[in-house]
């Protein structure tokens, strides 16, 4: 039985996997047709014909994860680390009949590398689907409050 708490726990666990750099376990949270989306416009509707910072399928996410561990990935020498500070997720939908599970979570995200530390704020929206007994990510959408500002490298995942 999937309850609101199942969804909330899922969102917390996902952030925890990122913070502890358990990349493979994080990828395993995605549905095979899942997407990770970082829009570049306010309340953006279209990830394909409007510009985004990221709109990646599982293959591209795997490339990122594998790259992070690469011997010749010089932008990861030293390695980046990240920290998610989440507000309690707001449940947008929890409808097992319709298979709709959605949450929206306000966050502060920190990414560090060497002596650098950058902090970002925004909202993460999770569209989840049930696969067997588990929830999987159909779409993780990350809206930065200042999506239109120029950033330096963002190498990990919000």
């Amino acid at each position, binding site marked *: 039985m999937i309850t609101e708490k199942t969804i909330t726990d899922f969102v917390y666990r996902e952030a925890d996997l990122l913070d502890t750099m358990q990349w493979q376990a994080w990828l395993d949270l995605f549905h095979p047709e899942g997407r990770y989306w970082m829009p570049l416009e306010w309340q953006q509707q279209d990830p394909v014909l409007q*510009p985004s910072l*990221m709109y990646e399928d599982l293959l591209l996410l795997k490339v990122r994860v594998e790259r992070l561990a690469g011997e010749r990935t010089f932008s990861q020498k030293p390695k980046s680390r990240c920290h998610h500070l989440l507000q309690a997720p707001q449940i947008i939908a929890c409808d097992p009949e319709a298979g709709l599970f959605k949450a929206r979570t306000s966050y502060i995200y920190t990414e560090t590398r060497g002596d650098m530390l950058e902090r970002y704020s925004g909202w993460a929206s999770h569209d989840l689907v049930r696969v067997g007994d588990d929830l999987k990510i159909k779409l993780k959408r990350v809206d930065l409050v200042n999506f239109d500002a120029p950033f330096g490298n963002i190498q990990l995942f919000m």
Partner: protein
Amino acid sequence: MANYRNNAFAIEALVRQAEVHRDVYVDPEIFEIEMEHLFPNSWVYVGHASQLAKPGDFITATIGRQPVMASRHTDGTIHVFYNRCPHKGVKIASEPCGHTGKFFRCPYHAWSFKTDGSLLAIPLKKGYEGTGFGDAQANEGLSKIKNVVVYRDFIFAQLNDNGVSFEDYFGESLSTIDNMVERSPEGKLAVVAAPIRYMHTCNWKMLVENQTDTCHPMVAHESSAGTAVKVWKREQGDGTETPMAVQLYGPFMSPYEFYEQSGIRIWPNGHGHTGVANSIHSNYSDIEGYLAQMVAAYGEKRAHEILGEVRHNTVYFPNVMVKGAVQILRNFIPIAVDKTLVESWVYRLVGAPDKLYERALMYNRFINAPTSIVGHDDLEMYERAQEGLKSNGNQWVNLQRLYEAGEPADVTAVINGTSERQMRNQFHAWAKFMTIDMDKRIEAAE
């Protein structure tokens, strides 16, 4: 450290035949002189006319560090002026783009200006009677930039009133813009979204040089493009259709021989491009319906000529790069000696299938975004160079690959695609436009 101000000789001495002194990247005074001389003497990209569709539309930009704005006047003409009120200096426009209506109004004291920049009204105007205001520069309204050229909707401006003409400055290099425009079946491009913005903690010239550096992709991008190719082969095998994403990443891993035969073309005044014979953009899948549209618009022969021109990166000196084949323009905006804002614009080919725009947007976020793994590879190299150049062990940067003694500057030539000659070409232009308006007789007399 030399004193470079008003010292054309010292500035010219930073550029040798095949080496440049590290001060061009790290010296704050050199950066200041670039802002005062190099950028004002050059033709700099301001924006695209499609961003000024209606009278009253405006955009803001910087030339070097100086805030400027462009507007569409009531009569349809485009004007560029400094973005500051003639009264107290307040910026008139604070947004990247917008619509001002019939006039601009300064938010501080309500001085207003027509959309060609001329002074329209000042509240309580009688306070200026008998003050000689008519002779003040403020009475002219927004200070106008005289040298503005709109070339096939690309707006360029030159701050120096007496600089090299637009035609002489760009010459044949405009052919890349021509090709990008002609890739639209209607011969028209449109900016329909904001650019991707990416802050770089390095000197702006490192980015420009990297555009024609063909010996770095297979090394620096092994981590990104190389991993993409590896993961694709493992996950999907080679038998199925290659997705758009892998088509975009894959060619970065091409071997040296590929880039050698692709060639580089250089032009006078520091312009040049990679990908003469072919390029990393050569082997993208056809997009359904597009070729037929192009043939209908241009005829069989011309359509194939246009689409057969797949130039890789074209540098428009000093700080712009254009990719005609994927409709991208990257603007390397100098902020400080070690800080550069990169704005990467995508143009929509008017009348062409959506899929082309989709691919251009995908390319832009794969390569030019702060979340781009290819971008991460490059920025890491620039940052390390910015740090490494503080070393006094060797004060020169080497640009000697395929240098030939006595090679002429300011010429058009096609050369081996792994040559660093375009970088040498840029630095020749750099020394020229840094000093072209300096009075060299003073140095000679000293």
